[in-house]
């Protein structure tokens, strides 16, 4: 039951881009059309789960040596190496998948949502399974937000008359603000 609550709360209540300001750059930058949004969302989910699967045991190892303060350095290096490895593996053995997802992988290394979810899992004392589920939920929430954003942008933003100063980035930010306003309605679902 706790696992289901974690997923739902990560998707709706604590949605990463819309409620916690994590992963804003790809959320605003790649959400131009639906295909790339879905690709990016799936790639982020995949890397999040994988990074959590690796970093959680590493943190236990660091703690057992009493060097938990090295968390930031170790985590970011592990994530960077992991993403590189996945990219190489995909390129070699799954060229079809690489073509649709692989192009997003280098972008993900410096995505704050991935490092964020790894650190959050440690800070909130989740066990291994809960951490994995939390990472999965965060990824799905990101995918969800990306899809909504891409839909809104293709229907409204590109075809409406916008004041000159608001063209470009500001109107995208206003759209994100209204989206996050509506997501605030989910607040207090599990309080």
């Amino acid at each position, binding site marked *: 039951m706790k696992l289901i609550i974690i997923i739902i709360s990560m998707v709706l209540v604590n949605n990463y881009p819309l409620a916690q300001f994590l992963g804003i750059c790809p959320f*605003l930058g790649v959400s131009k059309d639906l295909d790339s949004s879905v690709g990016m969302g799936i790639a982020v989910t995949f890397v999040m789960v994988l990074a959590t699967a690796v970093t959680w045991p590493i943190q236990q190892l660091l703690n057992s040596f009493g060097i938990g303060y090295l968390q930031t350095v170790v985590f970011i290096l592990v994530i*960077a190496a992991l993403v590189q490895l996945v990219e190489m593996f995909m390129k070699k053995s799954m060229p079809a998948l690489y073509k649709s997802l692989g192009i997003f992988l280098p*972008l993900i290394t410096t995505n704050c949502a991935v490092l964020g979810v790894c*650190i959050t899992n440690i800070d909130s004392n989740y066990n291994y399974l809960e951490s994995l589920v939390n990472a999965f939920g965060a990824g799905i929430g990101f995918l969800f937000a990306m899809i909504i954003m891409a839909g809104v942008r293709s229907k409204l933003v590109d075809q409406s008359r916008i004041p000159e100063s608001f063209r470009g980035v500001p109107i995208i930010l206003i759209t994100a603000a209204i989206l996050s306003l509506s997501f605030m309605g989910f607040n207090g679902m599990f309080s």
Partner: protein
Amino acid sequence: MEEKKRLSILTNGIIKENPVLVLVIGTCPTLATSGSVETGFGMGLAATAVLICSNIVISALHNIIPDKVRIPCFITVIAGFVTIVQMVLQAFVPSLYSALGLYLPLIVVNCIILGRAEMFASKNGVLDSALDGIGMGIGFTLTLVIMGTLREVFGNGTWLAGDWFGLAKGFKGIPIFSNFIPGMSIMTMVPGGFFVYAIVMASVHYLTKDKSKIRNDFGCDGCANAGACADGDCAAQKQ
């Protein structure tokens, strides 16, 4: 001439290439920590310290670092400085440490720092890189303070509330509106961050004389990974 160039490196980051408002990088910490002037200022200072130190070290080492593994090397240097800043804040300013929370370790993946390392420090000398770090840091901090001011004044009706690194414990802030009307608390919450950022950026667009310089989309220039994903989405967006 030389000095003039140095000065322009320093001022570039503040106005002409302001990282947040013109280059549109480092959006996550900007939105997340500009809820009040105090947290915004603290975040700005922390990021500036990391930016200056990492720029200096990376520009000093850029001849030694092999080109192929430069990004992991840069990240390691940055992560080291972030850890130092984290430990210093935890020891001396615990209130700021807990207010910034998750966003403090996330300075590592702040596009501004990695972006400047890739675009500037790895190509220029130590002094120029330090100046660039100071300029970009001031630009970042200034933007955060402006956004923090707007969000705090409209959200709480006060200005400059907070502990201020333990100097003014429990300072309630200068009342602006709070004596006669309650604040719009939405401004200090998540949607307010997006709204204020949009409005500040639109004002910058309005005041910019040369409209051709306005960035219509999130560009790749500021992204540290632009080189790595040349065959990907970034390349498609560039065309």
